[in-house]
């Protein structure tokens, strides 16, 4: 049996990616299971999805703490303690990471002891589909790593997407982009053994006494400790040369994370900015650009 775990952000399509992979394997004659797991948080927050694929009956149920293959749809998740995408990965397992960096770079940076595959599927999504919704592409990558045939992938994409979108042209574009990702990756050999490289820590809630487990209504603004800044794919970048200090961006940020610096110019709290880009959309001077987040460097790809 092959066990896959997908890590993405709400809205990127991790659930659909796992469905596509499951359906593609089913079309190859396998037994499959796929299901997502959402936390209490919402669009942009880390979520995971799971796929089991087997030639025989699958008796196992529940989340997958020890995957053979992990698909990381967003590089920023690697350093997110809430997501921990590498937790429990089996020895000799494969981890796919959506990044422009090379496997060697990522292996080094995150100290990964597994086969690493990388491809910048967000960029492919933006180029070929015009949006950073990368469910199909992640499904294609996973199918390739699992060793599924191209025809089954194509049919699975068609089948799954027809359930959620009606635009035939968009479905055709998704198939094209999926095949492109599929063919770009080389075929791998996966032979994992049970030992894991990191502690298995997928959702293990300790039992706390009532004094601790009951929320305190006296705490003030402790949410500041939560770094929602890594939810975003694009970050707003201010050009103070054209800014007239009109305050429009400050007023329109749902998170309230734009403040004024000593000169009265707006500055963002990047630890918390979720990258909704309302500020950029609303600035009358077009003084805020959306800059793509990609690991440590940011590449400007989108004017606003």
């Amino acid at each position, binding site marked *: 049996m092959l066990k896959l775990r997908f890590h993405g952000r*709400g*809205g990127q399509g991790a659930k659909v990616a796992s469905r596509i992979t499951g359906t593609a394997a089913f079309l190859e004659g396998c037994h499959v299971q796929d299901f997502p797991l959402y*936390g*209490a*948080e*919402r*669009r*942009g*927050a880390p979520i995971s999805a799971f796929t089991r694929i087997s030639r025989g009956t699958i008796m196992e149920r529940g989340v997958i703490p020890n995957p053979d293959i992990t698909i990381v749809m967003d590089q920023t998740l690697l350093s997110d303690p809430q997501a921990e995408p590498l937790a429990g990965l089996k020895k000799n397992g494969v981890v796919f990471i959506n990044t422009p960096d090379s496997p060697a770079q990522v292996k080094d940076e995150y100290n990964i002891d597994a086969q690493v595959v990388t491809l910048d599927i967000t960029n492919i999504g933006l180029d070929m589909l015009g949006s950073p919704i990368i469910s199909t592409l992640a499904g294609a990558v996973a199918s390739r790593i699992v060793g599924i045939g191209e025809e089954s992938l194509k049919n699975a994409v068609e089948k799954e997407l027809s359930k959620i979108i*009606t*635009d035939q042209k968009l479905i055709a574009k998704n198939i094209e982009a999926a095949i492109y990702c599929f063919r770009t990756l080389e075929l791998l050999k996966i032979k994992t053994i049970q030992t894991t490289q990191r502690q298995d820590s997928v959702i293990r809630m300790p039992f706390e006494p009532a004094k601790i*487990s*009951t*929320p*305190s*209504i*006296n*705490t*003030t*603004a*402790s*949410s*500041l*400790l*939560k*770094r*929602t800044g890594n*939810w*975003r794919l694009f970050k707003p970048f201010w050009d103070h040369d054209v800014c007239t200090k009109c*305050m*429009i961006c400050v*007023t*329109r*940020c*749902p*998170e*309230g*994370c734009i403040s004024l610096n000593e000169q009265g110019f707006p500055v963002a*709290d990047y*630890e*918390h*900015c*979720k*990258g*909704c*880009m*309302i500020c*950029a*959309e*609303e600035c009358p001077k077009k003084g805020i650009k959306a800059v793509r987040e990609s690991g440590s460097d940011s590449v400007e790809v989108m004017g606003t």
Partner: protein
Amino acid sequence: MSTEPIKSIKDLPLDENLFPGTPACAGCGGLLTLRHCLKMLGDKVVIVNAAGCFTLLSIYPFTPFKSSWLYTAMACAPAGAQGVRDALDILIEKGKLNPGDDLKVLVLTGDGAAYDMGLSSTSGAIYRNLDFYYICYDNEAYGNTGFQQSGATPFASRTKTTPIGKDFPKKDLFEIWNSHKPPYLATISPAYPVDLANKFKKAEQYKGPKLFISLTPCPPGWSTDPSHTFKLAKLAVDTGIWALKESVSGEVKHTFVPGKFKPVEEYLKEQGRFSHLFKPERKEETLGKIQEMVNEYWKQYGVLL
């Protein structure tokens, strides 16, 4: 707070009482509304939150609020507010709480709770003239559980439970509440923060129920780009779909009337939940009907002939 009306966004209070790090979706219009409301209400507030998206704002051990927060089931936030108000009053009466340190009691609900499950409890609270604030962030469906239709879902909107579009209109919660003749009742929009702020300033003068309904774009539910949230909230007002008004003891007045109404289509065509009205072919009849419903509303107030 000074009684001078706020004239521009530059006069809005700079203090924040809702902090970042929340679990709400990027671009949530409800969050933007709440941020402005809490700026006006200050930090001496007890928030009584009916189940919905915003009960996720405080997830142990994290809270984005400066003030206290209490979670109730969907149907009973106003009843919870009554309990909190009574407790505060008893403390004041016993001399254990200085009236100057008194807290405002605020009910916070989504449209699911406000329009449907919590309606009888709200009606009871208005009827008893409970001294409290009530804010409903109305994204026109049960957003928290995957966007199923609620009493607030408008005609023709697609939701998980109305896949081909809802075939009857939204409840008029404003009118239902207004028939109770509460001291202060208003509709607000995150796209008109100055109007919103002045309504809170005005409401402050009244004892009793002070109610606010805000139409708030919801990017995942409405299938819109998060960056368009503000634009859509504004289009809802500028097309006349969301009327900005207030009512003092039952008497209704519009606080903003667009100089020239934009066609409703401009608002509808931006949203995935209405995309079936444009693709694969235009549903002229439905589009016409929506425009007609908006025109009828304004005619009733003599704004349109």
